[in-house]
Structure formats: C-alpha cells, structure tokens
C-alpha cells in the first residue's frame, strides 16, 4: 500500500511544474555549433598540424589572411563568377523547368537532356570548356552555371507536374491562354519547388566554383586552398573551406527568407510561420 501512495506522489509532481517552453531553434543550433567546435578543438590538437587542424588555429590563420588582404582579393575573385553563374542558372533553369513540365512534347524532346545533364561528370569536361572559353572569368562562370542549372530546372519541372490539374482548369474556365496559365497559376503554384531547387543548387554552385578555380587559372579561394595545401599549411587551407560552407549556409537562409517573402502562404499553410 505504501508503494501505491509513493507512485501517486511521483506522478503528481511533474503535473504541478510550470509548463515548459520549448527551446528556441536558434539556441539549439548555437549549442550544437559550440559542442562541435569544442570537440574539434580537443581532438584536433592531438593531431600533427600537417594532417589536421583545429578551430583556434584556423581562426588565427583566418585573421592573418584577412590582415594581409589576400582573403579579400580571393573572395572577390571567387564570388564574381559564382554570382554570375548562379544567377544565370536561376534565370535559365526556372523557365526551362516550367516549359518542360507544362508541355508534353517539350518534356519528351528535352527532358532527357536535363536528366542526363544533372548527372554529367562536369569535372571531366572542364578541360574541354577551357579549350572553348579560355582560362578566365567566362569558363568559371560557365562551370558554376552548368552545375547549378540542372537541379533548379529539374525541381521546377517536378513542381509543375505536381500542380493540381483542377487549378489549371480554373484558368481554363476563365479562358486564360497557356502563357497566362503558366505565369499566373503554374509559376506561383510551383514556387516552393523552385525555391527548393535554388537552395539545392547553392551547394553544387560552391563546389563548381572551387573545381573551376582548381582546373582553370588558379585564383580566388580555390587558389588559397591549393597553395596552402602545397605548403602543408593545413590551418590556412581550412579557412576558405569554412568560409565557403558558412557562405552556403548564409545563402540558404537568405533564400529561405526570400521564399517567406514571395510565398508567404506556403509557410502559413504548413504552419512554419508560427515558429
């Protein structure tokens, strides 16, 4: 009998406690980053500095690189072809995806090239692109473009296919032309897919940029990576790698922010706006 009384008391205790507020997401992320960095610092210090590095050494290398001005120059060199290639990929990929998804014969005629292009081993083709476009800005922007245009196009295409037929019939019932249906119904209905494609392309565009810098004129952040690797300066080598990853995260959340601006209904419907 005593046991029973005991369990009752235990069961009652948590009910009396004030309702706990869920931890904010940014705090969870922050804690995760701190734990990650701490672990890296602790274990990184055990390793020969040629074979690995750790956050504090990388921070020092970052600071030196920044003071020398090399980092700023490298960033500008890298970001220009990146921005141009990525921007062109959005400008071309979205309309391509819309048209392929919307018109059956276009899909039949050109869909396979997009699917194939997505899997294209671009690294192998860079030497050929160099022959066509030289070693400078054009080839770098092209590599970024070619790597990021296909995920954007494919996602848009899949998004168009997922548009409910009835929404298109709404357009038809008001005698809207194919182009008007595409612009006023299919495009907004596909927007979440398009934004997802644009986000996926960020990662590929970053990789493409570094590949381009390795295989054409060695320049930009890619050059910093190669040169410091050749000097066994592992800490410095990590600086541009981490910058690129941080940049990708930043770009991703920026795109997420844009998405909530241009397609607020999507977040509202899925309930994500309440967080």
């Amino acid at each position, binding site marked *: 009998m005593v046991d029973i009384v005991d369990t009752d008391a235990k069961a009652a205790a948590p009910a009396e406690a004030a309702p706990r507020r869920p931890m904010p997401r940014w705090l969870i992320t922050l804690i995760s980053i701190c734990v990650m960095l701490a672990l890296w610092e602790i274990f990184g210090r055990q390793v020969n500095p040629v074979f690995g590095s750790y956050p504090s050494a990388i921070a020092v290398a970052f600071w030196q690189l920044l003071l020398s001005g090399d980092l700023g120059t490298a960033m500008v060199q890298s970001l220009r072809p990146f921005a141009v290639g990525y921007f062109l990929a959005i400008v071309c990929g979205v309309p391509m995806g819309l048209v392929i998804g919307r018109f059956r014969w276009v899909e039949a005629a050109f869909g396979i090239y997009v699917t194939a292009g997505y899997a294209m081993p671009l690294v192998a083709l860079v030497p050929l692109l160099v022959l066509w476009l030289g070693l400078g800005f054009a080839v770098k922007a092209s590599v970024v473009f070619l790597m990021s245009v296909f995920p954007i196009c494919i996602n848009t295409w899949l998004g168009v296919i997922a548009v409910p037929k009835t929404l298109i019939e709404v357009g038809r*019932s008001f005698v809207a032309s194919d182009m008007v249906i595409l612009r006023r119904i299919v495009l907004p209905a596909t927007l979440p897919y398009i934004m997802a494609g644009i986000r996926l392309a960020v990662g590929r565009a970053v990789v493409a940029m570094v590949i381009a810098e390795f295989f054409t004129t060695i320049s930009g952040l890619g050059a910093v990576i190669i040169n410091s690797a050749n000097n066994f300066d592992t800490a410095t080598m990590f600086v541009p790698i981490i910058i690129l990853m941080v940049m990708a995260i930043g770009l991703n959340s920026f795109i997420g922010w844009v998405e909530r601006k241009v397609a607020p209904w999507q977040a509202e419907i899925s309930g994500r706006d309440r967080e």
Partner: protein
Amino acid sequence: MGEVTFVDVSKRFTLRVDKELHTVQALDRVNFTVRDGEIVALIGPSGCGKTTALRVAMGLDASTSGRVTVDGKAVNGCGYDRGMVFQHAELLPWLSALQNVMFGLEMKGMRGAELRTTAEKYLDLVGLRESQNRRPHQLSGGMKQRVGIARALAIDPKVLLMDEPFGALDAQTRETLQAELLDIHARTKKTVIFVTHDLDEAVLIADRIVVMKRGRVSEVMNVPLGRPRPDLGVVRGQPEFAETRYKVWRALHEEETVH
C-alpha cells in the same frame, strides 16, 4: 438569356486499368434543355456521367459526338458566357479572397478601378466583404465555396455551372449555402445547372431534376414547388417536397429495365 441545350451529347474515353484498356461510355446521347433562368439539378449514382455532362457544357471536356449549345451557339471550349463553380472551390492559394474574384475578371480583360469595385460587389453578394483580404487557408470550407461562387458570378456569365458545390461541406453550412444560392439566383436570375448526389438538395433548389444513369438521361422531373423559396425549412415541411423526394428516390433506385 441563358438557354442550354444538350443535343445528342456522347462522350467516350479510354481508361487504362492494370494494363487493360477500358472504353467508358460516360455520356450516351444525352438530350435535355435548360431554360433561361431555370435551376436544373443533375443527379445520379456516381459514375453516371453527371459531372462529365457539366464539364462538356463548360468546355473543359469535349464531347465525342453531339453538341451543347448556349442560346443556340455551340460550345467550343470555355467562354465567359458560362461560369464554373468547382467541387472544392479551387481557389488559388496565393491570392486573397478578393484577388481570387479579381482573377476571373482580369482574365476577362477588366482593369483599373472597375476591377476592384466589381470584385468587391460580388464578394458583398456572398457576404464576404469583411474577409476579402484573407487567403484561402484562412477561410472555412463554406467561405471558400462562397468565394468560388463570387468568382464565377463576377464575370457575369449567362449560365452558372456547379459541380457538387456543397458536397464537401458539413450539413449546417450546406443548408446555409443552399439558401444563399437560392437568394443569389433570385437576385441575378442566372441559369444554374448543378450536379449533386444529395436528394434533398436537388429537390430544395432545382426547378427540374435530371436523373442520370449509366451515361443516359433516365428521367426529367418537375419540382412542383414555387418560387421564391425563402425558407427552406418550410419547403421541407411541404407535402410536395416529400412527394418529389420520394419520386426521385424511386427513380434512382429503380432497376434498369432491359429494353
């Protein structure tokens, strides 16, 4: 004017079910006329072709043979002489209620201040002026369908075509909207063709009921209830309501006689 005539309308389509091709005769020489200003209900078991008939009249589907005419003019694709109210309203989720009504008007070529005032007028007609800035997911099922009706009416069609417009609503909301539809009809005098599987709804709202079975018109019945019908509760209590309801029920449950 808004007289709709089905002349020998047939529609066949082919379905692929588990690698086998099935030819479905959705409509088989359908003939009937809906007079100007009349409300006609299409009723029948599912798969009887009632929705197909409506879609052919709208121009969303083409008939295999025969034709539908509106005031003597053969239907060829969609047109502004007909307005469609979809089963689940099908509002564009990224537009507010007002913008959804404006959408149809814009398609018709209306621009400027007139566009907004016209849309507002029709939202007013369905009692949704206060909610005009809400997006569809912020509207209840009944409100969505009201916007759907306003959107179809705003282009001032001769004929309103409604595909089970209240089928997805709860019973109470459905009754409210049925009354509102009658009220709107009394004010606008549009010809209305609506598809339903709800016996009560057909009798309460329609002037005539077209009973369809297996793609054919099996019977056309008059509803001997006068207009206006301001109180549907009273209509339900009238003996004519019960009689007609029973007659339609019988027509629906009768075994097909083999000729």
